[in-house]
């Protein structure tokens, strides 16, 4: 019963809000209240229409933005894992690199993004670098914390069971760190789309943000909403897939 309600209730709530919006927009209440032309306040039906009629244009730009997000996440996660692992194995390296990591993370994306566009152009890779830049830190810090939270008694036990440093890392530290790693991954996945949009804002010739800026200027509001709906779906899918991966991989919890 509770399981059914957990699906039915949020769906019903969203449907009700969309319905309310449909009524308020189609009857012109919102436009009247804001003193606007009705075409500036599209109803959900009109947004759906825009989604369908512009599907090729929207899909082409979605594909661009999606690649920026996914490659950025992949690169940032790999860098984060490599950094955390290296810092776990070498105390010296951790002492040397960790302050730098914090400093790099503190560089405002808002400042660095336009510079990267100047250096590397309008293509895909500057965006990937910017997303990776924003994503590696939560991965590194959470993974490192997870690796360090290992039970010292378990490590002692592994030593008497002839474990090498690597065996202890693989069989004890990594599984111990996984829940913490996924906490970092969830932050990364939530941040990545926002950063990708910002990177496009700094300079691009395609992508959803590019399209949104254009459409806003041309008062194509329905298509702006359509692009926003796509971004919401991407965000929800990313968080949902990460949570699913966690449940499948950290199956003992």
């Amino acid at each position, binding site marked *: 019963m509770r399981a059914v309600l957990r699906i039915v209730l949020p769906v019903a709530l969203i449907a009700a809000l969309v319905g309310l919006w449909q009524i308020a927009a189609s009857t012109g209440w919102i436009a009247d209240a804001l003193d606007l032309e009705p075409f500036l306040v599209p109803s959900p039906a009109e947004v759906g229409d825009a989604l369908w009629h512009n599907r090729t244009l929207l899909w082409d730009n979605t594909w661009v933005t999606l690649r920026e997000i996914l490659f950025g996440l992949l690169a940032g996660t790999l860098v984060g894992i490599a950094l955390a692992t290296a810092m776990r194995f070498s105390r010296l390296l951790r002492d040397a690199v960790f302050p730098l990591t914090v400093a790099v993370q503190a560089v405002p994306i808002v400042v660095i993004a336009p510079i990267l566009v100047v250096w590397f152009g309008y293509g895909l890779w500057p965006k990937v670098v910017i997303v990776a830049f924003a994503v590696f830190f939560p991965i590194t810090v959470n993974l490192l914390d997870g690796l360090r939270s290992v039970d*010292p008694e*378990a490590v*002692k*036990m592994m030593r008497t*069971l*002839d474990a090498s440093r690597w*065996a202890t890392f693989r*069989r004890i530290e990594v599984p111990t760190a996984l829940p913490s790693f996924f906490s970092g991954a969830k932050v990364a996945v939530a941040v990545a789309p926002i950063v990708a949009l910002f990177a496009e804002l700094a300079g691009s010739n395609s992508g959803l943000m590019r399209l949104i800026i254009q459409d806003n200027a041309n008062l194509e509001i329905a298509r702006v909403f359509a692009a926003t709906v796509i971004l919401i779906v991407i965000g929800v899918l990313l968080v949902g897939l990460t949570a699913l991966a966690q449940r499948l991989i950290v199956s003992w919890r």
Partner: protein
Amino acid sequence: MSVAARGLSHSYGELRSLRGVDLAVGDGEVLALVGPSGCGKSTLLEIVCGLREPSAGEVEVGGAAGAAGRLAHCAYMPQRDLLLPWFSALDNAALALRNRGVGKAEARREAGKLFARFGLAGFEAARPGELSGGMRQRVAFLRTLVAGKPVLALDEPFASLDAISRAEMQGWLAGALRAEARTVLLVSHDIEEALYLADRVVVLSARPGRIVAELRAPDPRAADRDAAVTAPAFVAAREAALRALHAGATADPKPPAVPFGPLGAKRNSWRKGAGR
């Protein structure tokens, strides 16, 4: 394989945990160490296993005096079962083989051979969370045995179990040792357990631990545990051990090395990391 220690002392900074302990455990002998909590018996076990170095004195396990050599000869079973929740019971038991580079299939086959004998048949694929306390302890013991080390160091192996499961597990361990003799060092705070399982029981004083008495168990690992632990000789040995324990707990005229009071919190944090 035999274990010998001469004049072992150990301290954690200012705090002396062991003072001049001499031990000799013969091949295939079971020696129990009992003493008040915090008397350094776990530290002593860790020193023998090569997990720690003494501040003074010597230890040899099968002729090996270095920490690495001792570690190679000893299998240590900690107080908590420390089964890894991400592995099945079988993979937990096979851990030592996997650590030595044995392939997964072969390690599982080797460890799996012992499951029936330990009353764990059918639970190979179970995750530790699905097992009862007694079964978890048996898997942990199996993991220690599969390591194939000649010396077993058991640190209060059944302390986390309720009284009934504990008695059951003592009977079970006695059976396992009757079937296959091993050199065992058993740390316990339970005198009955020590006198039932061990050939000899060494009583340690309060910190810093030193040996205050040594008793020979009347009927080690008897098949009928209930009869053995209520026999007059057992009860007498138990009384002697209790008296030695109480004398050792109070006889030391020196005040504790670290005073109680404001330093209490610090002392506790120290114990968490190193005491057990």
